[in-house]
């Protein structure tokens, strides 16, 4: 146990040194570290509870994704059956499927064939999996089309990916520093912005879907009449910006916000009110030109997230693909809308399910508290070890110090996040790391009392103790692993430092302490053990 070949000794020292070196970039300011090679730049990330900042957990409204899929399917069914000139009744979206009844039994097979063509095969790892994205079934003339669950899950996944991109753009527009936007689970997104104190504006920007449509106003009846009876099949009642304002708007979309190429906040030249100027791409400009040409003199509605923000009358055809939106805007809201339009519409609404914001004052206090606790704890332990085990206590202290440096090295290498509970984890690890050395030393003492010679006692102490060290540390490691899996945020930081601490403790106990003692034994050739 005490015998180390030169190679082994060198390997151990080198490993410890390299791991410790990874901790070095943390002590230099960012400006200097930037010039170093990329593998030397890894640092520990300070958690939001130490840095200050905002963390928002957003949930993608998956029901909305399902509804939109069904609606799109519904419109496709209408289109296909009309093109094939197949009469039908009772076309409706019910629950999780679209159903339609074919009037003439002779048409049923034809209809099923045409509708089946709407269903696409689902891609798999090696070509198609054989599953389709819509299940089509028919019973007595009633055709039911159900999007399959894997297809929906795929759509949700795409919606989340798209949402992340759009959030990224919106957050960039706000000029926020280094935001971190990540998927969390199947349908959630975690947005973390260090340094952000008041996330109110961010929440507003992220809370709006920003779906912009241009549609015609339906003048066939007043909104009140439509509310009393039934709105015409292709129109719906939408609210305006002031409460109580209602409009009857056609469902058909003339141009959508997806065709916008730019949007800028500005001021109306005549009224000096804040407005938003927009510009379409060529396809959108064409559609807009066609729509305005065909409808001169009629009002059209600009609908944002199913609310009418403006319904101006088309005075002349707009051929240039440019225009302005005026409504009850403040400078801020006009700016916000321009940001939203530039970044794009979210595929599904986002709800904020969890929010944690820490101010810089508390963050700095936490760092100070963590530092004080760490130094105090380390000092107490070091003094105690020295007083109890003398020279060997000194060896243990050296090993524990290197242990802590290695913890920082590993955390830097992983780019892990350090939180306040994480610092507590490191302080705790110091207490636990000492235990491995204590086990060894107490065993050595026992072996001495049992009558072994000094060197044999030391050797036996190490041999007997190491199995126990392994067993006892593994149980704590299991607890840390479970905590990592179920925890989030600061708690996860604690699990990481605890887990890493146990691994480095095992390494130093098995190698460093032994190495130091072995070297001392070889140099001093002691007759008695000074424990």
């Amino acid at each position, binding site marked *: 146990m005490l015998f180390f070949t030169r190679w082994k000794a060198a390997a151990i020292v080198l490993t410890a040194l390299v791991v410790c070196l990874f901790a070095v970039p943390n002590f230099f300011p960012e400006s200097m570290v930037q010039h170093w090679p990329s593998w030397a730049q890894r640092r520990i990330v300070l958690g939001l509870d130490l840095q200050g900042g905002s963390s928002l957990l957003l949930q993608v409204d998956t029901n909305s994704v399902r509804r939109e899929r069904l609606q799109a399917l519904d419109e496709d069914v209408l289109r296909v059956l009309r093109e094939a000139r197949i009469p039908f009744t009772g076309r409706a979206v019910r629950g999780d499927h679209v159903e339609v009844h074919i009037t003439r039994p002779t048409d049923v097979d034809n209809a099923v064939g045409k509708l089946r063509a709407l269903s696409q095969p689902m891609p798999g790892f090696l070509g198609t999996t054989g599953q389709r994205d819509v299940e089509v079934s028919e019973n007595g003339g009633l055709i039911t089309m159900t999007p399959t669950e894997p297809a929906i899950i795929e759509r949700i996944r795409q919606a989340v990916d798209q949402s992340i991109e759009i959030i990224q753009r919106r957050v960039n527009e706000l000029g926020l520093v280094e935001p971190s936007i990540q998927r969390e689970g199947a349908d959630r997104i975690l947005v973390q912005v260090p340094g952000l104190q008041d996330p109110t504006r961010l929440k507003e920007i992220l809370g709006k879907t920003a779906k912009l449509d241009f549609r015609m106003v339906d003048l066939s009846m007043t909104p009140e009449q439509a509310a009393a009876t039934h709105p015409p099949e292709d129109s719906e009642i939408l609210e305006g910006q002031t409460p109580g304002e209602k409009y009857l708007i056609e469902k058909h979309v003339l141009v959508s916000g997806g065709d916008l190429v730019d949007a800028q906040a500005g001021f109306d030249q005549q009224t000096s009110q804040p407005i938003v100027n927009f510009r379409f791409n060529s396809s959108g400009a064409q559609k807009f030109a066609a729509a305005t040409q065909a409808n001169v003199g009629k009002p059209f509605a600009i609908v944002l997230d199913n609310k009418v923000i403006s319904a101006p009358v088309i005075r002349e055809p707009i051929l240039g693909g440019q225009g302005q939106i005026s409504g009850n805007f403040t400078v801020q809201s006009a700016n916000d809308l321009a940001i939203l339009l530039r970044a794009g519409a979210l595929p599904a609404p986002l709800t904020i399910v969890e929010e944690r914001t820490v101010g810089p004052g508390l963050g700095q206090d936490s760092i100070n508290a963590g530092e004080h606790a760490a130094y105090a704890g380390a000092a107490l332990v070091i003094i105690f070890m020295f007083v109890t085990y*003398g020279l060997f206590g000194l060896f243990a202290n050296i090993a524990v110090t290197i242990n802590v440096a290695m913890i920082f090295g590993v955390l830097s290498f992983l780019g892990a996040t350090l939180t306040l509970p994480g610092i507590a984890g490191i302080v705790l690890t110091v207490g636990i790391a000492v235990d491995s050395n204590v086990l060894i030393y107490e065993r050595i003492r026992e072996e001495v009392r049992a009558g072994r010679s000094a060197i044999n006692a030391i050797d036996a102490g190490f041999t007997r103790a190491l199995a126990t060290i392994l067993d006892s540390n593994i*149980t704590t490691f299991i607890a840390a692993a479970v905590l990592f899996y179920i925890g989030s945020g600061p708690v996860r930081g604690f699990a990481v430092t605890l887990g890493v601490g146990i691994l480095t403790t095992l390494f130093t106990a098995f190698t460093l302490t032994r190495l130091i003692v072995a070297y001392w034994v070889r140099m001093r050739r002691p007759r008695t053990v000074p424990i």
Partner: protein
Amino acid sequence: MRLLRIVPDDTKFDFMRFRRISFPVSAMLSIVAILLFFYHGLNFGIDFIGGTLVEVQTKAGPADLAKMRATVGSLHLGDVQLQEFGAPNDILIRISEQPGGDQAQQAAIQKVRDALGDSVDYRRVEVVGPSVSTELLSYGTIGLVLAIVAILIYLWFRFEWQFALGAMIANVHDLVLTVGFMSLTHIDFDLTSIAALLTILGYSLNDTVVIYDRIREMLRRYKRLPMPALLNASVNATLSRSIVTHVTVAMSLLALLLFGGQAIHSFTATMMFGVVLVGTYTSVFIASPILIYLGVGVGRMGGAEEPEPPIVASTAPPALGKPTAPSARRARARR
């Protein structure tokens, strides 16, 4: 240099004798703890029951708690609690979960911000909606159960089943008492408390495993020693190490408790109770004697009285002391 010896080298306490007291006492304390949990309840934080937590610092001098309470109360947000948090101008506002799902929580925090305006600095804002809080609660409970099962399996793998079961009973008992403590002191119970419980579990097992390791070694070496004596010998042998380690961990926790600040106060206090107070007690007085009841060592050769193993009695190294009759007997026994 004279070294500190907290525990003398040759302790011979009869720990196992106390099992007739310690078992009933522990059973009673556990029942009390469980009753406390059900009737007194835990002070669940917003992590588990949703709601909003705002820590504000008034900019102009100490806070007028009554006025703030009135301001926030007038917003009609249901159950609202305000309390001082560390310094006189540091106030913690806690608003219970609003009906209406996640969006309602957002509306509530916005109202609070509008109402308090610029008069305060927002040190910390935490809003947890109903979907996340139920998840965290179930994850927390599942996590605890999972950890217990995983460790049970690991111990079964390394030791015999009686050891695994004994360790589990002892350490679940630890957790039960700690939860009772948390209920009694009305300490905040949130995600960091789960972290504390898991760490107490892991660390307390750490302790138990060290003793079990020694017991296993003794079982191999002293086949005819009756169980109580063998267990006593094991515990006495590891006593020095246990005390030293508990002192070092206690010192780390003390540093955290004194300097770590309010944010992790509940975490450190819980750890202090669970690891230092309860953990030590159960490792010695529950985890070891329980092996007797679980029938460990019964299958060995019968219980003829044997001299105590050398570890427990004080020994002078044979080279230095004059060989006496006891020493010769011991030398024979070792063979």
